[in-house]
């Protein structure tokens, strides 16, 4: 388990999962070997007391998210999209987060200010594969942007999901704004913000720490950073002097902790605990989650799988297999179901309409009020 404001990050189960992230053929062999070697360990693995139902749901959603992201990369590489950016490697963080929030529209529900690695969270919240595919393929049916924006720049007002932005870190002070409105509304809803480690260099990160923590005016916001130790091509050490990003929250008297975001069990328990703390106290909390950036930054650096890194989906899957919670047959079936759903969704999206040229003037102002100066 994680400890508050400590640097203990690597969970045993997740670390051993690296053996699975090689080729499929060798993975099977490795699985058998690891399975045998792990028997003693898995007997002690009580998954933090989480029910089998939760564990299986997490696995299912993690696989679904992974398959979707890999499908998006394929769509990009096939020339059916202009750009890819996404969150494969963040499933063990994003899925529990999405499962735990209070989903809905309005100030009595949680608000989500997510970055572009948030597919696992939205999958956990109920986003369909095809809606993500419609976005990357710029269909007018794309419910987030109507074909106007990049992959994973989601927006779902029906779930209080704020639009994902390309400029990094700007979402942090916005989360303080919605948290302020939620607090005034008087319920127990919170605002949740996610972002990357490199982005914490931006002033907006500091803005959020200050706005959330003013004495007597604390805000119910869960401030999180997904630390994959890489900012596009600059390693963590090249842009950080602090030992833990979470330590910066402590300077503002914000409760903080570092967790292994590659372990969905640890994430689930930590996020649940922090959400409960925020709902109870109305004060902010901070989680630094260590994650994997499995396919690089974006299509700009190739979007190829990094085989030397921990693969949280495969690692968790192996733990469940070892514990007898999942069978090999069931695993195969789950992957097949989502692979098939992804292919069918892509085929359907291909047939759907794209935005018309004339629609550039739509929605500059509310109710399509004229925005074209030529018509003033």
């Amino acid at each position, binding site marked *: 388990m994680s400890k508050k404001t400590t640097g203990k990050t690597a969970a045993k189960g997740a670390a051993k999962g690296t053996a699975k992230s090689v080729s499929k053929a060798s993975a099977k062999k490795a699985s058998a070997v690891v399975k045998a070697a792990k028997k003693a360990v898995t007997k002690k693995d009580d998954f933090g007391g989480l029910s089998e139902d939760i564990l299986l749901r997490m696995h299912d959603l993690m696989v679904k998210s992974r398959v979707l992201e890999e499908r998006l990369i394929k769509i990009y590489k096939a020339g059916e999209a202009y750009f890819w950016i996404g969150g494969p490697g963040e499933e063990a963080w994003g899925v529990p987060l999405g499962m735990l929030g209070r989903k809905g529209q309005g*100030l009595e529900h949680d608000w989500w200010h997510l970055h572009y690695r948030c597919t696992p969270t939205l999958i956990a919240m109920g986003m369909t594969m095809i809606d993500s595919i419609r976005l990357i393929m710029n269909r007018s049916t794309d419910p987030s942007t109507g074909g106007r924006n990049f992959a994973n720049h989601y927006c779902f*007002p029906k779930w209080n999901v*704020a*639009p994902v932005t390309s400029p990094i870190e700007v979402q942090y*002070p916005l989360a303080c704004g919605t948290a302020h409105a939620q607090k005034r509304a008087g319920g127990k809803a919170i605002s949740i913000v996610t972002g990357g480690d490199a982005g914490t260099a931006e002033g907006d990160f500091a803005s959020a720490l200050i706005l959330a923590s003013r004495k007597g005016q604390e805000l119910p916001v869960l401030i999180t950073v997904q630390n994959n130790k890489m900012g596009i091509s600059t390693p963590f050490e090249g842009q950080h002097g602090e030992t833990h990003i979470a330590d910066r929250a402590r300077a503002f008297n914000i409760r903080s902790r570092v967790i292994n975001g590659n372990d969905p069990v640890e994430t689930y328990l930590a996020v649940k605990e922090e959400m409960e703390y925020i709902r109870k106290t109305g004060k902010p909390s901070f989680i630094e989650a260590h994650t994997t950036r499995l396919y690089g930054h974006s299509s700009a650096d190739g979007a190829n799988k990094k085989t030397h890194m921990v693969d949280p989906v495969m690692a968790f899957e192996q733990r469940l297999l070892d514990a007898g919670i999942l069978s090999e047959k069931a695993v195969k079936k789950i992957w097949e179901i989502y692979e098939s759903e992804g292919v069918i969704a892509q085929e359907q999206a291909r047939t759907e309409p794209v935005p018309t040229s004339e629609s550039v003037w739509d929605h500059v102002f509310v*109710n399509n009020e004229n925005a074209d100066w030529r018509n003033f």
Partner: protein
Amino acid sequence: MASIAQAIRMALHYGETNMGVKDIFGQDVGAPLGGVFTATQGLKTAWNSPLDERGIIGMAMGIAMGGDKCVAEIQFADYIFNTIDLLKIAGNTLWCTNGQMNLPMVVMTPVGAGIFGSVYHSHSFDAWASRLPGWKIVMPSNPVDAYGLMLAAIQDPNPVLYLKSKALMRHKGDELIPGEPADEKELKAMIDKPVQNAEGWKPRWPDLQEYIVPIGKGKITREGEHITVVTYSRMVHLCDEAADKLREEGISVEVIDLRSIYPYDWQMIKSSIEKTGRVLFVNEDTEVTNFGEHLAYRATQEMFYQLMARPRVLAGKNLPGIGLHPNLEKNSVPQLHDIELAIREVVAEVP
């Protein structure tokens, strides 16, 4: 008569009492100061933010996203520049979400020279603002418009930038705001925080009425036949003064107070130019690249064969800043004699 600062204060009071404004915030906006120009004294929803412009704009966007109405202030437009990408995002949110998420927020900030504020308290922002699609931008020149445009800004479901001239904060107009007492001493006693012994002070607000100045509608402040002068904010008064002076010489000047930068009242400009055949655009933002240039371009494109003279833009010089010494400031932004000279030149030009 109310000053512009008092007019804004009364509009914000009306907004928080009758139009659902829940937050009026920014640096020193709340008690005890109530704004460096006193425009937010005594307001029940006014509060002090950290000294952080990006935090203020981000917070305002979040509040608006959550469905609450807010008015945020950047203490001087000179410090709004480090929020430009946030303003850009606020302006594009509706468009990027295909019409799903609007940000009904107002951002107000004092702009321009005229107070000898030196390099960092004299910036204009109108041309910059005009390049933020998705925003509406207003610039009042008198208290009644300041009141009516603020109510319009609060009422509007889009983000609205409310640019208020620093030099006009104490300017008093010649019209009463609906509900304002006729005696300005009485108004002062009711809503101005006492300089001494202000502890426990609360304003007594007059019975204010709704009064909306529609965004995008200009106003003719002087009617004339020989030349159209299109201007806004502080420059309206200099242009009116020039018009009054030149009228005595037989030069009839029509002055348009644009009031809104975007959307702007092209039909009013066009009708006036059709009548006069000549046009001068006056503002104090730097001349490269200037909002008046856009209007001059449009006038040239659409009215070329109706023009009796070349359209002209008179604006601030393209300098790194406004120098503190009066000689420097006065030679940086248009002065009365510059406007007179420019009008004479355009009127004298013969096709």
